[in-house]
């Protein structure tokens, strides 16, 4: 059973809740239990990962040190405010909230309560992304000029209650998927000054962009070219990156770096509800992330990603969504004026 240390309670029992639970078990952290409206799933997850099945969110909050919010995006705001009001530290899945305004309220509430708000932008903990950022931070590429990021999948498939495809709940592909790369682009090239985007919806899903191409202009003048897709053919989860700097170039591609490639006769493996990129490393990036978060809460480490970063990624997502609606580039408030023009 779980070791000494901070007692973590997971809110939610779905896919990401299970990923977090698996990581907490793997690192021998204290998984106190789960609270979820999906009561039928609660028994399954406690049987698999241990911990209690709390009868309510309030019951969980009363029994833990850390509330790990793995509920659907639109619920983050109310859950985090309640956890903060109870004086609990918060780990919150990305995106931090459904809207920037919600995130601002969450950040203020956690500051008032004196508790941490740690947003799970797990891409920062994926080894290839962390290594590329480390090369930039070490000055190996010089100043970033063009950052290219792609995250291409067939989209989340859930047999029932597929909140991912309900824009009111998830913010759609832009907020659920592309927010990873908005955050990463900021980590590599700094604040974003403007966003321009083009996208398309699936038939019968008017308004919900399934595939988006976004061009970001950073305050530094750097350009980010970001592709996000829930429209790629099955079974796909491609991630790609390239950072071109003043003195060097780095690139990566999940298909080219996959160390194990297998072809099976017949129909092949079944496809899960939500495809995740294969990253067979000793420790899952989700575990690395949660290990870091617990050390932050114990006072031993400075957060690699802050709630302010989570909010900034939401602001980029909001600008991208607005550009999709209007067809025009959208300036982000407070990001500074356009840098000196170049070109003939």
């Amino acid at each position, binding site marked *: 059973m779980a070791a000494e240390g901070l007692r973590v309670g997971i809110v939610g029992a779905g896919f990401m809740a299970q990923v977090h639970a698996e990581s907490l078990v793997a690192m021998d952290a204290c998984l106190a239990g789960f609270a979820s409206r999906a009561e039928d799933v609660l028994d399954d997850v406690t049987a698999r990962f241990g911990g209690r099945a709390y009868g309510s969110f309030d019951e969980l909050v009363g029994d833990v040190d850390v509330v790990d919010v793995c509920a659907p995006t639109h619920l983050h705001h109310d859950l985090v405010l309640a956890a903060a009001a109870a004086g609990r530290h918060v780990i919150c899945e990305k995106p931090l909230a459904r809207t920037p305004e919600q995130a601002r309220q969450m950040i203020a509430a956690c500051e008032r309560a004196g508790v941490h708000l740690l947003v799970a932008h797990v891409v920062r903990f994926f080894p290839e992304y962390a290594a590329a950022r480390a090369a930039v931070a070490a000055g190996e590429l*010089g*100043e*970033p*000029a*063009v950052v*290219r990021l*792609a995250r291409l999948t067939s989209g989340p498939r859930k047999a029932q209650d597929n909140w991912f495809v309900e824009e009111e709940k998830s913010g759609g592909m832009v907020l659920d998927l592309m927010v990873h790369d908005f955050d990463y682009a900021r980590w590599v090239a700094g604040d974003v000054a*403007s966003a*321009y985007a*083009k*996208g*398309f919806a699936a038939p019968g899903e008017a308004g919900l962009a399934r*595939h988006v*191409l976004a*061009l970001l*202009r950073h305050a*530094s*003048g*750097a*350009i980010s*070219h970001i*592709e996000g*897709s829930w*429209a*790629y*053919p099955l079974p796909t989860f491609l991630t790609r990156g390239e950072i*071109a*700097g*003043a*003195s*060097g*170039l780095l690139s990566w591609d999940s298909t080219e770096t996959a160390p194990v490639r297998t072809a099976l006769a017949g129909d092949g493996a079944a496809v899960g509800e939500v495809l995740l990129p294969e990253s067979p490393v000793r420790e899952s990036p989700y575990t690395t992330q949660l290990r870091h978060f617990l050390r932050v809460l114990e006072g031993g480490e400075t957060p690699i990603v802050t709630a302010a970063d989570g909010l900034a990624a939401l602001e980029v997502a909001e600008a991208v969504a607005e550009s999709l609606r209007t*067809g*025009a*580039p959208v300036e982000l408030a407070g990001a500074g004026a*356009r*840098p000196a*023009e*170049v*070109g*003939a």
Partner: protein
Amino acid sequence: MRVALLGIAHVHADAYIVNLRAAAGVEVTAVADHDAEAARRWGAAHDVPVAATAAEALAGADAAVICAETARHRELVELAADAGVAVLCEKPLATSVEEAETIVAACRTAGVPLMTAFPMRFSPPMQAVAEMVRAGRLGRIRACTGANQSELPTRHRAWFADPDLAGGGALMDHIVHIADALRWFLGEEPVEVFALANRIIASEAVRVETAGVAVVTFTGGTFASIDASWSRPATYPRWGGLTMELLGTDGVTSVDPFRQYLTGYAAEEPATRWVAWGSDPNQAMIDEFIAAAREARKPSVTGEDGLRATQVALAAGESARSGRPVAIAPAQRS
């Protein structure tokens, strides 16, 4: 078929002379360049008679290949059209839409074939994609990404980064190839361009943009990005490359027309090199030009194609300067 080479500023002149000599029944009769000394050296190196002027080089010629700096294209095309010879002109066609239109009009009026040097139209991997799209295998194409990134071209020719001669920097240099391929694949015309550019790479060495990315929207709503950056370091195993990915309602395909290479590792620098073994698209392009000139017919890639791609590149430059999307007016597209 007697071919005159007008201008040797473009690095492709060195390749085309080989392709022209490999084409059946072709004689390169003269080379001329505004830089007489450069022409003399080039003529000596490639064993081509040097003419004092472009007009002199055109005397007795059946066709002209123009590899001068972009800003000199119009003057040379007009000379060639007046001389009644078929013209193959390097890309981009001109440094302004007006000049590109003048080039097209001059050849139309003179009744001579005008071809724009878009070798990607003759690349077998690119042709395979064009056929796949045309056959509807991918359904309706909704979105594309394209990248035509290279090393800093000033390593080979300084004028590529001279805005007066090249009409711009990276955007002007590299947008046209993919802009043309997109028109070819989609069968649609560009209607709007948005672009960002910067000069973070080689910021001290040149005064034009060294990186730029454009998003082009087409008549049917399809959108495509073109990364035209000079973002490959000098140590890259090749000059750069061109890649495209097309997402349709029924599937996705990606193409890297320069992917057909051997990977070589040497004991000394450059340690890694890519040895191309794919079919040379330049040869097929030159062969088509010679055939069109011989048959006095429209080539498979035209001056209008060059004009339209040039419009996209120029609109990208304008958008990068203004920060706004730039419409390509329907009147310009006709």
